[in-house]
C-alpha cells in the first residue's frame, strides 16, 4: 500500500501495521463526531492554520492514516503537536469528522503510549498541579522600563486556587504522568 503525504513525498506503509484498535479508541474519544465518514475532500486542510506555515501538516491525511490505524510514523514525527486547536477544520468539514478532535485524541493516545509532548506543555501541566496556573506570575517590563508584578500594580495577591487535598490528588492522577 502506498500513501501520499507531505506534498510529493511518497511513503510506503506496511499493511501489517494496520491496527483497528486505533480507530476504535479515537472514535471513543471524539464522540459524537465521526472520523469514519471522512471522504478526503481536504476542505479541512484548505482551512488549517497550521498548514499555512507548516505545509507537511495536513489534517485530512492525519484522519486517513488514523482510520487505517497507521499512526506510528505520525506519532514518531510529533507533528500532531503543530495543531493550534483553532477548530477551523471542524467548521469546514461537510461530514462532521472534526479533524481537530481526532488530533486531540491522537495527542492523548500518544501520551498514554509513552510519547513525550513538547517541553513547554510538560511545564504547563506541572505548574497547573503545583500552582493552579499554567505559569507562575511574572514581572513585566513597562514602557518606562520599570518592572511590574501584581503587587506593584495594586492587583490582589494571587493565591493557590486549590486548598483541598482531593483536588491536588485528582490533578496528579490525571496529569502527573505527563511530567514526572
Amino acid at each position, binding site marked *: 500500500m502506498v500513501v501520499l503525504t507531505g506534498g510529493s513525498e511518497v511513503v510506503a506503509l506496511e499493511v501489517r501495521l494496520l491496527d483497528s484498535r486505533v480507530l476504535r479508541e479515537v472514535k471513543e474519544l471524539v464522540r459524537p463526531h465521526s472520523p469514519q465518514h471522512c471522504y478526503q475532500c481536504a476542505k479541512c486542510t484548505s482551512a488549517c492554520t497550521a498548514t499555512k506555515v507548516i505545509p507537511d501538516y495536513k489534517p485530512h491525511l492525519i484522519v486517513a492514516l488514523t482510520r487505517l490505524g497507521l499512526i506510528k510514523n505520525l506519532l514518531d514525527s510529533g507533528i500532531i*503537536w*503543530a495543531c493550534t486547536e483553532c477548530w477551523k477544520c471542524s467548521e469546514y468539514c461537510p461530514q462532521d469528522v472534526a479533524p481537530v478532535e481526532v488530533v486531540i485524541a491522537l495527542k492523548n493516545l500518544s501520551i498514554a503510549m509513552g510519547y513525550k509532548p513538547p517541553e*513547554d506543555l510538560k511545564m504547563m501541566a506541572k505548574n497547573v498541579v503545583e500552582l493552579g496556573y499554567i505559569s507562575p506570575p511574572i514581572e513585566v517590563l513597562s514602557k518606562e522600563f520599570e518592572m511590574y508584578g501584581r503587587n506593584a500594580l495594586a492587583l490582589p495577591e494571587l493565591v493557590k486556587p486549590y486548598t483541598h487535598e482531593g483536588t491536588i490528588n485528582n*490533578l496528579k492522577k490525571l496529569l502527573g504522568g505527563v511530567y514526572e
Partner: protein
Amino acid sequence: MSKFLLFLGCTIPTKQYSYEISVRNVLPKLGVELVDFAEAGCCGFPLKGLNRRAWVYMSARILSIASKKGLPILALCNGCDTSLRKIKDILKHDEALRKEIADLLSNEGIKLDVSAEVYHTLEILHDFVGVEKIKSMVRRSLKGIRIASYPGCHMIRPSDIPHPEDPAEPRKYDAVLNALGAEVGYYPDRGGCCGATMLPYSARHALLIAASKIKTFKEYGFDAVSTSCPYCMEMIDGKQDAARTEVGDESISIPVFYLTQLVGLAIGLEPKELGLNLNISPVEEVLEKLGVSLYE
C-alpha cells in the same frame, strides 16, 4: 443581574495584567459588580491534548463551584469562555464521563453541577451594559481612528455551542467600537487564529502566523487593532517585535488594545488606570491622536 464572578484564567493573572487592570477599573464604572473568584484556577483548555479528561474535570470543577455560589461567571479569556461552554455540552451528551467527573469532584467535596451561566467580556459590554449606555458615557471619542476588531478564534468556534458572538454574523465587537466613536472595517480572515497555541511546538512558526495577521491589518489601512483574548494579545502585541524580526518586515508595527482599554479611554479614564503602559505595541500613536500622554 449585574453581579459576576471574575474568572481570570491563567494568562491574565500571571502576565497579561493590563486586561485585569482595565476590567477591574472599567466594568464597575458601567454598573457591573465584580466578585473575586480566587478558587477557580486554570480551566484546563491548554491541557486537553495531554489529557482530555483533565480538561473536562478542571472546567467542570470551576462551573460546579460557581453553581454553588449561585452567581454567573464572567470569563475574560476566550479559551476559558469556550472551555466552560464546551464542557457543558460534552457532559450533557456523555453519561459515562459525567459519572467519572462526578466521582473525581466528590473526592474534594464538590457536587457536579455545570448549570452556572457563562459570559464573556464582550457580552457584558454589548448585551448587559449595552451600546446606548456606553455611547452616553463617552467623554473622549475615538472618532477618526480606524480599528480592526480581532475577537479571536474561540469567540466564534466551535460553532456547535453558544458563543458570545453569533458565529455566522459576528457584529457585537464592531458595534461596541462604533459606540466609542471609532471606525471599523473589513479585513480577510477576521476569525483567524493568532498562532499562540503553536508556541510550545514551534515558536518560529507561531510567529509567522502572528506576522501574517499583523501584515493584513496594515494592508487594510487600520490605525490600530483591538482584541479581547489574552492569547491574541500575547501574540499580536507582546510578540509584535519578535514577529517583525522573524520575517524581516519593518512595516509590521501597529498599536494593539484590549477592548476594555479602549472603552476605558473613551469614557475618560487615564492610561495607567487601564494598564496601557504595559502594552508592548506602539499604543502612543493612538494616544497622541486623542491628546493623551502615557507618561504624565
